[in-house]
């Protein structure tokens, strides 16, 4: 079991950047502005955001139960957890459900995805569930420590029979994850770097990431894809973060009109500027 060294509560008073910050900025700098700089109220809550969060809750419930009792909980308990969370998160909130993607549709999809997950997953030894981290970031050229910390929460850390660690990240996707897509995912890179900074690796220099993908195709599916990350990747991440931070610090909040606008909770505010 890996002991926690930070709590998300303590992050408020730090200069920090997270995977979500970086990802949001890369998708649309203006969305970043609305969401993180001025804290604008969302015009509606995207259903996919709530749905993803609730699925994470249910899967975390599965792993916590496994960690505590050394055996899987019943599928019915996992689904009951999902339904309870779904009800709680969708009641009384202005969620942007549509006719074709209503509350019931999501609930049915969630149960089917969890069933696929339950049947497909083979958990190892659970070291940590929803593990928070806060690690330093370095200037990629000089190696000097930046004022900012990298913060986040890793979905799951497992270990094999020899105690080697594996990071696992749950994702929902509309199609199966291709190798090229997985290799470029920010999540695994950020988490592997964080774990490396904390002194944990799978081997001497590498860290293994596994994406557990809940595939929302007509016939739902569950896919596990593995990637390794190593120091060269971390240098690349360092430069990436530095570039994003510099752009943010220079208030470069231009819009990136495109596919993400349709589901953007700041669309009206953005388009009326």
């Amino acid at each position, binding site marked *: 079991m890996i002991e926690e060294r930070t709590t998300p509560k303590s992050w*408020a008073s730090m*200069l920090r950047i997270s995977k979500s910050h970086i990802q949001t900025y890369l998708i649309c700098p203006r969305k970043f*502005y609305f969401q993180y700089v001025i*804290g*604008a109220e969302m015009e509606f809550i995207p259903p996919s955001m709530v749905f993803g969060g609730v699925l994470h809750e249910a899967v975390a419930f599965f792993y916590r139960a496994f960690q505590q009792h050394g055996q899987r909980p019943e599928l019915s308990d996992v689904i009951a957890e999902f339904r309870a969370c779904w009800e709680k998160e969708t009641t009384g909130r202005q969620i942007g459900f549509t006719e074709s993607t209503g509350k019931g549709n999501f609930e049915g999809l969630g149960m089917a995805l969890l069933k696929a997950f339950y049947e497909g997953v083979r958990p190892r030894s659970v070291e940590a569930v929803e593990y928070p981290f806060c690690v330093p970031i370095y200037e990629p050229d000089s190696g000097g420590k930046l*004022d900012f910390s990298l913060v986040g929460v890793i979905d799951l850390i497992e270990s094999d029979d020899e105690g080697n660690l594996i990071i696992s990240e749950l994702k929902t996707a509309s199609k199966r994850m291709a190798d090229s897509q997985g290799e470029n995912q920010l999540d695994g890179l950020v988490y592997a770097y964080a774990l490396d900074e904390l002194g944990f690796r799978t081997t001497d220099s590498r860290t293994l990431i596994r994406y557990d993908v809940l595939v929302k195709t007509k016939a739902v599916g569950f896919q596990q894809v593995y990637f390794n990350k190593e120091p060269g990747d971390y240098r690349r991440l360092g430069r990436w973060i530095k570039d994003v931070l510099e752009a*943010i610090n*220079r208030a470069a909040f*231009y819009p990136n009109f495109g596919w993400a606008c349709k589901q953007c909770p700041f669309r009206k505010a953005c388009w009326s500027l």
Partner: protein
Amino acid sequence: MNRELLEKPFDPSQIKQRKGSFGDVLDYIEGASVIQRLNEAFNGDWMFEVLDHHVYDDEVVVLGKLTAAQISKCQFGKSKITRATKDNSIISLGDDLKAAATDSLKKCATLFGVGLHLYFDPPKNGSQPAAAPRSPGNGGSNDPSTDGRLTAKQLSAIFSIAKSKNWSNKDVREFTQEMFGKLPDFLSRKEASAVITHLSGGQTHD
């Protein structure tokens, strides 16, 4: 009341700088410039009274009242007691009280809008009220070397002072949103300085 003149940004040559309590640099206006502005705005028809004063161990505090155009604004002013290095004796309590009164006058004048722009962005192109959310930038207007994003030390100071005043994180977020239209992490250095100054001298948040 001529608000336009009262709130008109001071010329950069009139803006002085001093070191703040948290290693940051604070802008300020000298008393004479404030008096000059009041004279211009009210044609000399204004009055300042000291309603009360206190002498504490290390500082003197003055409660002042500024009246103009039949409107009065009250504020406290303070000054550290100046002591001789040699024997720690007080050099001139009168001068300290005068400094506190000037501080009080400046604070009262701020309530009329004088020098208010100093709490917002640097007055490069005239004043720009920042209480309402501004349009997002394009990256070209903000030079981080002069007034970039707040430092880690400033952010830490904001939350530390807020905690000592029983403010929750939510209180801090709401406060900076109301004051500058931004969440705390994205304040500029000047804005963070203004928040620190306000929190350091403000009332408890019950």
